[in-house]
């Protein structure tokens, strides 16, 4: 029982990442009808927002310590991040909370990147075939990836989580299991809560604001909304920006779990496309449900007990499920008729 609970939890944070990326993909697809292969790159850019801020905060000031001599008789160097030297205690706290702080940085950056991307590139591809949309955004993804590689190098850059949430939580005792039966890293718990919060925020935004109402109406029937005198294009552009922010935030918060490198976007992209298709193209709830579902299935498949029966199942489970679901339910779990067919 505790094993099952542990696997579910293990899957949930990965599922959270899948769900967030897939949510953004589906938002873009539902509003603009564009298949965005650069979405994984947006996830990666978000992660590198965190890397950038962390590197900025850890810039070191080198000063000479006159009281301390090296064995060679020269004064030793003191290396201290500027932020600590200038702000003392507050500075170290900021450094400690670099990842959560990057959220504040990432939101405006990703919003701007998303809007620029939509206005500059994607706008011209609404009426073009999906194959061309896939190809141009794929090209963009390669370009973004290479720029990041030139800037930050090809190696993964580890970013620590804040100290307060760096240990493991003894989740088992909360549910009345034996002590230390289920211990779970705090940060993964934070990630799970965070992804749920972001998903709820996006749904609430679409459900309860006038802006969201117009966007939903536009998703249902773009022309009619346009005829009512509403500038639907502008709102869809903003939705693209929001989708970019969602992907970016997923990336920011994922950095302590997986040290970001330049091709993490591509790795997640394929999986999140599978997630979107399993959930049903254009269905927001489908994307979220499929994200969590596939995350959990993946973590179950990586249990040693299961692997001993079906070796290699952990590698292919997602694709296997995707194939099975697509063959049984042509439009995914919650897809609508006529979306992306033909």
């Amino acid at each position, binding site marked *: 029982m505790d094993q099952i609970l542990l696997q579910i939890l293990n899957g949930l944070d990965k599922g959270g990442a899948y769900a967030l990326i897939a949510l953004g993909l589906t938002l873009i697809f539902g509003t603009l009808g564009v298949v965005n292969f650069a979405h994984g790159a947006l996830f990666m850019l978000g992660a590198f927002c965190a890397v950038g801020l962390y590197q900025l905060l850890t810039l070191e000031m080198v000063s000479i310590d006159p009281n301390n001599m090296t064995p060679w008789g020269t004064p030793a160097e003191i290396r201290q991040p500027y932020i600590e030297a200038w702000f003392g205690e507050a500075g170290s706290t900021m450094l400690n909370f670099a990842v959560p702080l990057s959220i504040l940085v990432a939101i405006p950056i990703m919003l701007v990147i998303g809007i620029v991307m939509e206005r500059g590139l994607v706008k011209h591809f609404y009426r073009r075939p999906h194959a061309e949309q896939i190809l141009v955004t794929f090209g963009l993804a390669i370009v973004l990836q290479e720029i990041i590689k030139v800037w930050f190098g090809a190696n993964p850059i580890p970013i620590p989580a804040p100290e307060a949430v760096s240990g493991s939580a003894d989740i088992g005792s909360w549910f009345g299991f034996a002590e230390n039966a289920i211990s779970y890293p705090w940060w993964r718990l934070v990630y799970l809560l965070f992804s749920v919060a972001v998903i709820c925020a996006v749904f609430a935004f679409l459900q309860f604001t006038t802006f969201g109402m117009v966007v939903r109406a536009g998703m249902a029937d773009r022309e009619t909304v346009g005829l009512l005198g509403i500038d639907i294009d502008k709102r869809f552009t903003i939705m693209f920006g929001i989708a970019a922010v969602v992907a970016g935030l997923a990336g920011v918060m994922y950095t302590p779990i997986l040290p970001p490198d330049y091709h993490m976007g591509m790795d997640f992209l394929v999986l999140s496309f599978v997630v979107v298709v399993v959930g049903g193209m254009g269905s927001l709830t489908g994307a979220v449900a499929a994200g969590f579902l596939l995350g959990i299935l993946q973590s179950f498949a990586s249990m040693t007990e299961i692997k001993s029966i079906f070796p290699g199942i952990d590698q292919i489970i997602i694709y296997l499920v995707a194939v099975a679901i*697509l063959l049984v339910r042509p439009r995914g779990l919650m897809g609508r008729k006529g979306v992306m067919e033909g």
Partner: protein
Amino acid sequence: MDFLDKDNLQNDLILIAIFAVAILTMPIWLEPFGASYPDLMQKFAIFGIFATGFNILFGLTGYLSFGHAAFLGVGSYTAVWSFKLLGMNPIPALIAAVIIAGVFALVIGFLSLRRTGIYFSILTLAFAQMCYNLAYSVLTPITNGETGLRVLRSDPRIFDGNGSDTGPLVASLFGIEMTGMAGFYFCAVVLILVSWLAIMIFRSPFGLMLKAVKTNQNRMGYTGLNTRPYALAAFVISGMYAGLAGALMCITDPLAGAERMQWTASGEVVLMTILGGAGTLMGPMLGAALIKYFENIFSAFNEQTLEHVFSFMPEGMRDATVSLAGLFVGEGWHLTLGLMFMIVVIFLPGGIIEGLRRLAKAVFGRKRPEQSHAARDDAAQTAR
């Protein structure tokens, strides 16, 4: 639709003759580009075959498969197994690879073709990723996992080696070793043969049917025609082309690895086809050659080469130019690829062939269709 109005045999014969001459003289006219070494020309031919086959599915029938590298990998493994079991003759390896890849394509195509559009793309992607992961882990007895499968001296090889310590470990066609120029000419002959086949498919009533499937599948259905067998046939044929390409890879270098099946490899062939011009005869080959050329030539540029190239500039300007250009070559050649790709998709949706056609139109003006057709093919040939 320009291929419809000239389906006469003579034109095709001229076309394939020009093409054959162009391919066989590649070592001569590729010299000035620095691309006349056999390794690269083999790649041109092999990826030309791969892209031509992919074009039959994507360009002609309109199904965007994101998993074609799976058939390439299956072909590779089959070829190496044929070497291991039968001997180093490339002919049985080619035949076995084409058959096995065709069977694979039949199964995957039968399942995937139940869906269209992006669902089809994702299904093929999922199948290919499964094949990749299985080849990497579970099927290690067959694929030798991450080490890759290669021919060993101790293999049975019933027709030549027979476990002896001597005997070559490279493919040899009746005594001609398939390395270097001989390997290239072997690939080139296969390329010419399968291009001829592709032209026949394009011109045939079957090709016309595929074109109709691409144009409007629903309407085809309303006329009472079941389109699935046609699409499936196209899928199997293109899978066989991919298997052939994979086998040729192993014939020139007897090693098969799982990374050949990864989805990025499938993406690459899509890029080649689009870059050259999907649905045209020569386009995919052109795209394949261009991408392989960039991959091999650009990625070999280093700072010294660049400094040599820009040596005519004053020093400060040269340093700036070198560091700027350094972003686009060597390790960063992917950046060039991505940019080139975006530019082509944005400004030239028909690919390079479309560009050449426009160029020919601008240069030669509006002539009779026959002549402009010939001019375009000529231009396509010389541009290679």
